[in-house]
């Protein structure tokens, strides 16, 4: 149990009376550090009136020790020597506030992460723990009484990206009564999922589960859907962002077009003219088009790059004529909207790996080498071949090879596993076999099937007679080594289970391309002020405890923009992001940093050094007074301006020079 309190060191009434609480953390700390000795030592430090030890300071009784000492007036400042600020600073600040004072009259001494976990020798560790305690005691004596501050939260939410992640998040929020702006840069929502025919592991029809959600988005009174649009500017801060959205012209009025598609039939081009992006170039579309029948909104788009009217000014405009609603407007230009939102959910998804980067697989060289995404389109009933597997040369395959891990688990490209390729490759194996009766060969490194029902799906495919060959493919070639190989593509791979090299002739090769960050990730990251990991996916605040939050408060992540994931995980994460945003909005206010910077006007020379440095644009320059000013609501307390201000005019709460130097002296004086 807790040590008996000891009053010592005559301290001035009203002056600092510091309580030091040393935590055992079970054996995490006490196994190495002599906690009793640290407590004895703490008692000898100036201004320390109480020093105690306890097995788990973060437990309720542990916190109660602090609260009680504060309430009884034995102490007015608190030092807890325990784990680390990341773990429990919030906990002990709360306890300090519960004790009836400012939560910032608290300082933590990290004697677990910085001491017991890294310093093996018990004697050294104990001495080091004392130094940390001495530093915290000196520092906390100089802490100011700061009030916790809050700012109100705007109730609307911005969702960026209308894939399944954005759709699910938007619907969840809208159903909870929040207004959502859903911004999608393509002319339709749906994302990658809209391209698939079926989805693993249940093999349910992608359109059947997705399109009802797409229509629901369009119909929802609480959702403003902006397609063919992107976010160009974000300012403000958590709870109060201002977002500027650009709408690109589609030359057809969204409010008038009903999606009857009469114009497409009427276009002077009788046949498609340019590669259809949605079909990945496997078919052609006209200059006036819609990506797919269930596109949402069901509004056609005119592509000025290929439209004769835009290119030459001479076209009978049969499309315009055909439109009963008079929806065409060739004079449209970019327009902008500016909205205020309290929270932002980023759901910008992924792109697939470009297999041209692996020339030995022949993509782009052999017409019958396809990416998995292209095969998704081929299999899709609304795709370029209406679901039939007809190859680029018009033939039908009798043997198909599917190569897993293209671009993934490969140190030359992406060291990570793209998580969905094994499963979608098995799905494609099943569907291709079903549609063509061809022999299917899957070349894999390992089969990764860790989801619910996934291993069972794998078993099912195995039993269907798909050949699974374990080994990385060396090359796809059209050079025949035997007469039987003549006229085929040959896949050369090592079969690591048989321990031999194999050559498998096939008619079609499917490359299971991995998932990678969107090409504009860096711009988006900057725009929303968040960070990316080494692979380029957006970084969550904590991989376990805050998986949908970012380091920028009020900005959340959903779906594959945070890392490769399948639809079930994407939807789960989108729900979580929506819930986090909801929690924030319904709380009505956000807590603001206490360690903000502030500028002493009298000392500011107006040198402007700080103004451009603030990564959060919290500093403005008052031209009239010729002084810089920090908006403390926006300031994140990063300290950049404080370090840079050559006048010492910019100062930071909880990080004053005096406090920092006292802390350093505490360590040094002890040593």
């Amino acid at each position, binding site marked *: 149990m807790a040590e008996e309190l000891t009053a010592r060191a005559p301290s001035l009434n009203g002056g600092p009376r510091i309580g030091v609480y040393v935590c055992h953390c079970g054996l995490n700390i006490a196994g190495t550090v002599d906690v009793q000795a640290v407590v004895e030592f703490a008692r000898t430090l100036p201004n320390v009136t109480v020093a105690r030890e306890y097995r788990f300071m973060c437990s309720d009784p542990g916190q109660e020790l602090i609260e009680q000492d504060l309430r009884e007036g034995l102490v007015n400042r608190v030092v807890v020597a325990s784990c680390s600020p990341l773990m429990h600073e919030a906990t002990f600040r709360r306890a300090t506030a519960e004790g009836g004072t400012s939560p910032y009259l608290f300082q933590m001494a990290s004697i677990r992460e910085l001491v017991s976990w890294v310093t093996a020798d018990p004697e050294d560790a104990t001495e080091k723990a004392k130094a940390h305690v001495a530093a915290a005691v000196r520092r906390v004596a100089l802490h100011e009484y700061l009030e916790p501050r809050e700012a109100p939260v705007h109730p609307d939410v911005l969702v960026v990206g209308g894939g399944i992640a954005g759709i699910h998040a938007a619907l969840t929020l809208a159903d909870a009564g929040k207004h959502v702006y859903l911004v999608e840069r393509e002319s339709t929502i749906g994302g990658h999922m809209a391209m698939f025919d079926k989805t693993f592991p249940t093999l349910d029809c992608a359109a059947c589960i997705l399109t009802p959600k797409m229509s629901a988005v369009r119909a929802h009174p609480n959702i403003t859907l902006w397609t063919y649009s992107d976010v160009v500017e974000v300012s403000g801060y958590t709870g109060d962002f201002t977002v500027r959205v650009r709408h690109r012209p589609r030359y057809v009025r969204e409010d008038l077009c009903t999606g009857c598609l009469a114009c497409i039939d009427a276009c002077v081009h009788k046949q498609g003219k340019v590669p259809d992006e949605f079909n990945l170039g496997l078919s052609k579309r006209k200059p006036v088009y819609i990506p797919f029948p269930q596109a949402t909104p069901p509004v056609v788009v005119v592509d000025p790059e290929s439209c004769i009217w835009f290119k030459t000014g001479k076209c009978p405009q049969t499309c315009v004529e055909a439109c009963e609603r008079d929806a065409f407007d060739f004079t449209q230009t970019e327009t902008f909207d500016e909205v205020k939102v309290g929270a932002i959910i980023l759901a910008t998804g992924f792109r697939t790996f470009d297999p041209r980067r692996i020339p030995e697989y022949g993509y782009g060289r052999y017409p019958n080498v396809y990416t998995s995404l292209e095969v998704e389109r081929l299999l899709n009933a609304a795709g370029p071949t209406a679901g039939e597997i007809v190859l680029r040369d018009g033939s039908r395959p009798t043997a198909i090879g599917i190569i897993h891990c293209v671009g993934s688990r490969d140190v030359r490209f992406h060291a990570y596993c793209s998580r969905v390729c094994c499963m979608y490759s098995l799905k494609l194996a099943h569907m291709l076999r079903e549609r063509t009766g061809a022999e299917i060969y899957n070349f894999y490194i390992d089969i990764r099937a860790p989801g619910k029902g996934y291993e069972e799906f794998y078993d099912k495919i195995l039993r269907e007679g798909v050949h699974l060959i374990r080994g990385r493919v060396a090359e796809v070639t059209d050079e025949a080594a035997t007469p039987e190989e003549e006229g085929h593509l040959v896949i050369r791979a090592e079969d690591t289970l048989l321990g031999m090299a194999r050559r498998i002739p096939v008619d079609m090769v499917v490359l299971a391309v991995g998932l990678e960050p969107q090409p504009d990730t860096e711009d988006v990251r900057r725009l929303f002020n968040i960070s990316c990991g080494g692979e380029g996916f957006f970084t969550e605040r904590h991989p376990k405890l805050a998986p949908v939050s970012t380091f920028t408060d009020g900005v959340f992540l959903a779906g594959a923009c945070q890392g490769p994931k399948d639809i079930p995980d994407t939807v789960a994460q989108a729900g979580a992001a929506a819930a986090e945003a909801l929690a924030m909005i319904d709380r009505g206010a956000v807590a603001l940093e206490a360690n903000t910077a502030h500028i*002493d006007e*009298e*000392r*500011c*020379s*107006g*040198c*402007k*050094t700080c*103004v*451009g*440095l603030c990564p959060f644009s919290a500093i403005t*320059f008052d031209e009239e007074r*010729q002084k810089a000013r920090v908006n403390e609501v926006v300031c994140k307390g990063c300290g*950049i301006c404080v*370090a*840079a*201000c*050559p*006048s*010492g*005019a910019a*100062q930071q709460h909880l990080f004053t*020079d005096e406090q920092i130097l006292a802390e350093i002296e505490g360590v040094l004086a002890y040593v």
Partner: protein
Amino acid sequence: MSKPKVAFYWCASCGGCEEAVVDLAEQVLDVVGAVDIVFWPVALDFKVADVEALADGEIAASFINGAVRTSEQREIVELLRRKSKAVVAFGACAWLGGIPGLANLRTREEILAEVYRDLPSVADGAMPREEVEVPEGRLHLPRFDEDVRTLDQVIPVDYYLPGCPPPVALIAQAVTALVEGRLPEPGTVLAPDVALCSECPRRATKPEDLKLERFVRPQEIVADPETCLLAQGLLCLGPATRAGCGAPCVAANMPCTGCMGPTGRVRDQGAKALSAIASLIAPSDPEGVAKVAEQILDPVGTFYRYSLPASLLHRRVGTDGGRPAEPSEPVAAAGGGEPR
């Protein structure tokens, strides 16, 4: 009532501070008329014994310029401290160490060897000795200390008059205040506590988002006479230097070199100036930063020109005893570069 007694003394300095007193011009006569000068080696023929004869605290104020490097300087300033009510550290050297303070980049032995043995103009290479026997008796030379110290590293100081030399207006103000007995709180620097940009006529032209792609030296460009010098790539220390000089260097199209010292909240002028200017370097990748930073040819001599002994660094440390690091060392190797 008798006139207040004052003393002037110089330590390790160039004499410019004495000149500044004379620069008071007609005002110097008012000063001379209003006070009783009891000691001023450069101008008047008083002896140390005259000072010793005064009662403790009899001198109203001693104005001491120069940094402290020898035993003689220490003795006299200690004596003046005893005899004075107030001691004013006069000028950059007394306050912060000044240009002589850059000698702290060398060890005492290196300096003596260079001056008395290695220089091409030295013939016999005799090292100075503190005691010499001559037929007339034993002669003493002051001892050359290990390092240059600021005045307040040797004796308690009441006020500081910044500048190299202090601006005439500030001297006049200080002396007037003294004569009228209106002295501020001890410890005060007798100049505005705000940086030079505040009184710089070019401030309006300084961009809010200054990003420095390169540094140039004054002789390398013809600086625009209107635009902020820092914005033109010249290392202007105005943002990190006290105002009160009226920005004469900037008026002459030369960047501020920092002689007025730091403002009140800054402990280490060089470090502050360095961190302010480094944060304005445009590139953010290490190689890009190094490329721009390399153009600061003499980092210590630039950022610590007047304040090395007063800084947290105080002097070059290390047991190498050899030559300082090569001048081409990047900025990060503070304490390295060679003044030139």
